[in-house]
């Protein structure tokens, strides 16, 4: 037996000194603003499907496209949008991602020996984090920062033609669904599904981290609510991806052009 030092020497590194604050900011940033944003973002994007019921455009025009364009126009009318994006989204996401990956590297998954559902959930939370970081980077770089060399077909997303350019970027071509486009679309399906899981499970574990749910019954009840939130968001996410991948960009462009003309033309 070795002699046992009882050591409480002051930890040295910045991460160790502020371990509590950083851990809790990591937890909080996942809920607000990132989680709150993801909910709004997915509901907005799913408007290409749920917009079909609101009859914004009559006749053969695509009401979903019109609703989505209307939502995008609203977002782009916000003052200081770039500042909101930088301080409300990109920096919090970068903070959550960098710390999250650092924390996740301390994990040694052991589902082979302990194949419990909770253990799979734990493992998937880390996998979804890694894949989610890659997906969000690709998503923002291609559609927001204009890194069109990463987009099959080289489509540049524009806010004025939100649905048509998004559909082209996901399909890999102006009209056809190409093989490369199919890969992008599949990456979107996997990426958003994992991120929705990451949020739903993160909401559940955050309640344990902060000490809101202590008893097994409380954790079970809150788990059911998180499952419902996750299922609803999953529906929205799949609607959005499938809605845009199956969209006809040419028809969407017509609708958008008509809306743009309607906005600028004097009545």
């Amino acid at each position, binding site marked *: 037996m070795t002699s046992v030092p009882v050591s409480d020497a002051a930890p040295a590194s910045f991460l160790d000194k502020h371990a509590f604050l950083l851990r809790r900011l990591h937890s909080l940033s996942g809920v607000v603003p990132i989680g709150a944003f993801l909910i709004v973002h997915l509901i907005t994007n799913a408007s290409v499907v749920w917009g079909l019921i609101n009859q914004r455009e009559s006749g053969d025009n695509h009401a979903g496209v019109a609703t989505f364009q209307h939502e995008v126009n609203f977002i782009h009318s916000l003052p200081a949008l770039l500042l909101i994006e930088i301080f409300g989204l990109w920096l919090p996401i970068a903070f959550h991602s960098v710390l999250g990956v650092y924390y996740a590297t301390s994990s040694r998954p052991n589902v082979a020996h302990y194949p419990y559902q909770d253990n799979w959930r734990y*493992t998937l939370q880390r996998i979804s984090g890694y894949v989610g970081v890659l997906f969000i980077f690709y998503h923002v770089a291609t559609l927001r920062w204009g890194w069109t060399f990463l987009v099959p077909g080289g489509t540049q997303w524009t806010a004025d033609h939100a649905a048509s350019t998004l559909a082209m970027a996901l399909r890999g071509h102006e009209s056809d669904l190409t093989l490369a486009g199919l890969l992008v679309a599949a990456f979107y399906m996997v990426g958003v599904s994992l991120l929705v899981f990451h949020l739903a499970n993160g909401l559940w574990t955050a309640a344990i*981290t902060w*000490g809101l749910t202590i008893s097994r019954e409380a954790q079970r009840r809150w788990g059911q609510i998180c499952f419902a939130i996750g299922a609803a968001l999953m529906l929205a996410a799949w609607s959005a991806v499938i809605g845009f991948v199956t969209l006809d960009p040419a028809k969407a462009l017509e609708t958008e052009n008509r809306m743009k003309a309607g906005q600028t033309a004097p009545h």
Partner: protein
Amino acid sequence: MTTASPTMPQPAARQRTVRFRIERCDGPGKPARWENFDVPLEPGSNVISCLQWIAAHPVTVEGVKTTPIVWDSACLEEVCGACTMLVNGRVRQSCTALIENILADGASEITLQPMSKFPVVRDLAVDRARFFNDLKRAKGWVPIDGVYNQGAGPGETPDAQAERYVLSTCMTCGCCLEACPQYHKEEDSADWNGAFVGAAILSQVRYFNEHPTGSILKKDRLDFLSGPGGVNDCGNSQNCVKVCPKEIPLTESIAAIGRAVTIHQIKKFFGVKR
């Protein structure tokens, strides 16, 4: 008259045997190796009784004479935790690992390995010194020492007593640590400081913080668990509660410590003394 070697196993022809695959190691830093043994199946036999049989007949299935296997055990009734090891890859006490039950679960052989989260002393015996050191760092005791008789301690309600009783049954066996994907082996004691303490320590802090006299050290314990290696290092895989042989509600303890640390840190931030 011919004499059979006393070390050769001589099971009767009709007696069933069970194959043991055992991971052996001659000492710290030495390489691990596997040895196989066929042990006669006795009614009610458990892993410990089979290890005792092998100690009396230390011959592998290849007929090679070997050394008896080293393992730890004491109470043989699942209250001391000393005989904890990996039985068919899963952590548990070997004294209550009944061979008939393991075979009934469909296993054809029984593998024994030392716990993977603690340094091996020899064969199946491990050194859990870090575990006990973490209990000291967490001040896992009730301070009652004084220079004069301080009289009777504060009273306790039956409800609080009932809640704390199950927490008191922790036997520092380390099953929760072994199954935890956030708890890792640290060979060097210099690395213990800052490494995750695991579910058992978190539950013991809850136990001593809820004790009317033990709560005197509550702030020290919560300061310790706020830092690196404390409650925030838990990843909520919840394996701990599923492998705990005493059925201690470890995940409830973790959440309770999470709440206590949250309140403790908010009070500290705003300078609230009590």
